[in-house]
């Protein structure tokens, strides 16, 4: 099956890193399931309404399977227990070998497991944003989380994007969004700037319109 525009992502660990990652992915329109061990934390996650929540230990196959890995695209193991993260990624790969695995690690262990999983993230380096970048791949890269709310991203316009080949003035962007730079960041964007497939543009957006931006520029 060709890849869907919206990924199905399983996040193991609903701590601050997991939740923040879920928020950023949800803003971009992806589908999420969070597996979290602590019951109180689960009800807190439930109130956020960004993901389906499975309560339990993600390293157990019977719990992990409840997150529907057979129809998922990515597993991100983001608990603060590094060996558990490795176990979750290994189990995920073993049970469903088409899953892309992303593992949270720490500076002490570093890249030691890099060959065993598809991507490794360090929380020390703005962990949530890095996790998002690793999950999505290189086509959409968050630059910085300004003032906690606005997102500034570098977005590569895809071949399948509705806005591909159009000038900025011909594209109906939602308010709360701003295309800042020309491709490759060489000039400030103008109304006649053309959105070319394969080129990268710097875009700023309020969290609630990021999904619409993704649909216009990524398809």
């Amino acid at each position, binding site marked *: 099956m060709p890849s869907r525009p919206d990924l199905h992502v399983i996040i193991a660990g609903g701590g601050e890193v997991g939740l923040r990652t879920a928020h950023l992915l949800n803003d971009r329109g992806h589908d999420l399931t969070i597996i979290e061990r602590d019951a109180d934390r689960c009800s807190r996650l439930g109130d956020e309404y960004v993901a389906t929540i499975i309560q339990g230990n993600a390293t157990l196959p019977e719990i992990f399977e409840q997150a529907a890995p057979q129809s998922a695209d990515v597993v991100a193991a983001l608990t603060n227990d590094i060996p558990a993260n490795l176990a979750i990624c290994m189990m995920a790969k073993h049970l469903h070998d088409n899953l892309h695995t992303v593992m949270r690690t720490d500076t002490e262990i570093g890249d030691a497991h890099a060959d065993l999983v598809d991507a490794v993230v360090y929380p020390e380096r703005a962990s949530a944003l890095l996790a998002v970048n690793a999950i999505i791949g290189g086509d959409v890269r968050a630059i910085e989380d300004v003032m906690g709310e606005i997102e500034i991203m570098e977005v590569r316009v895809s071949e399948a994007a509705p806005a591909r080949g159009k000038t900025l003035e011909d594209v109906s*962007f939602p308010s709360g969004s701003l295309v800042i730079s020309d491709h490759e960041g060489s000039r*400030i964007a103008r109304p006649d700037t053309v959105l070319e497939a394969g080129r990268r543009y710097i875009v700023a957006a309020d969290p609630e319109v990021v999904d619409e931006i993704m649909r216009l520029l990524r398809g």
Partner: protein
Amino acid sequence: MAQSGDRAPAASLSLLDATMVGMGAMIGAGIFVLTGLAADISGPGALLVFVLNGVVTTFTGLSYAELASAIPKSGGGYAFVREIFSDWISFLMGWMLGFAYMIAGALYALGFASNFVEFVHIYLPAFPGGATMHVIYALLVIVGLIALNAVSTEASGGAETVVTIIKIIILLIFAGFGLAVVQPDAFQPLFPEQKTGWSLLPAMGLTFIAFEGYDLITTVTEEVENPRENIPKAIFISLIATVAVYLLVVFVAIGTLGADELAAAGETGIAEAATSFMPQIPLLGGGGSLVVFGAVFSTVSALNAVVLASSRVLFAMGRENQLPAPLGKISAKYGTPFWAILASAVVMLVSVVFLPIEQVGRVSSLFFLISFVVVNLSVIRLRQERPNMQRPFEMPLYPYVPALGILLNGILAYYLLREDVVTLLVGLGWIALGSGVFWALKRRDASGDEDAATTDAASDA
């Protein structure tokens, strides 16, 4: 200068707004057009038809509430079924649910046309209003609303709330005047002559479409404030309030006009009842015209709701690669799911032209009933296969509630089909067409994958 967006993004919906999304979609053509037909089948027992349909719908409403509180996706029934069922079942669910909304749109458009002609005739008796003209007005209203929705994403939240409150007020004015003059004898006997309690079942199936619409709340969940609490609340409040309004209206219609005259008036039954007892109103004239005005208003807003609902289902299927990709894309020029809206329009227009009005109602009811059976099944499967999933709203009396939902919806579907070969054929035809599309898309995807694999192998070598 950098290019800043100026199109309004989707609004956030309060509990009242969300409730009105449900009520707005439910109170459409159903109550105005189908009450007469229900009286024709069941006599004064038509009142029970609406009571029992309310009960049946509540079972599925509980299932929707549980699913919506646990699964934060805006795709409605399709998204929930997609979560737990195979590609094939979830495709069919989307295929049937989308069609049910589209064909409900055809019913609302035809309901609009007959009421519109009636309304204009009050002022312009010479206005053309033959059967062909009805179809033309129905086509025009669909084209108008589709055009509006295809080129504009203007947040409909607030406006929809006002429109819905106006239609509720019109029905309450009707009921208020009527309650004073209801003849209790009109309900004696409840089932006259050869009619029996069994006649309720086909009448329930036929009018079921008037109870569909609360499910639209689950297509906008991500825009609702405090969703985990407000979505189940909005589902229940909209269901209970709508059933209450229906009961008042049907009680008054039968109590004032009598079941026989109501049945004879058919699609314009409620308006005839209003003419019989309401005083003259300045500008509008007799009570009938107020109700006809309410019906014109209601059918347009309900049509608007199903245009959005059907395009949302097609859009969600397009994004899941279950329908061709353009259906899952928003238009760069307008910011709307343009192709999904256009595809819904084509089906609505074709249905208006080729299906008689009673058939349209039946086919739509049938697909809602089948879809609701699958939604109830989803609750049971999710409870069994994902016991650890968080369910902020857990329905009481599980598993009896979804089991009864499946059983009762199934019985209504059976009675709907029992004496109606055309509905059965249209239903089977649509499912067969869907199966063809599903396998064609699957083959296309599979051959695409093989090509990719061959290229990879070649580049490795």
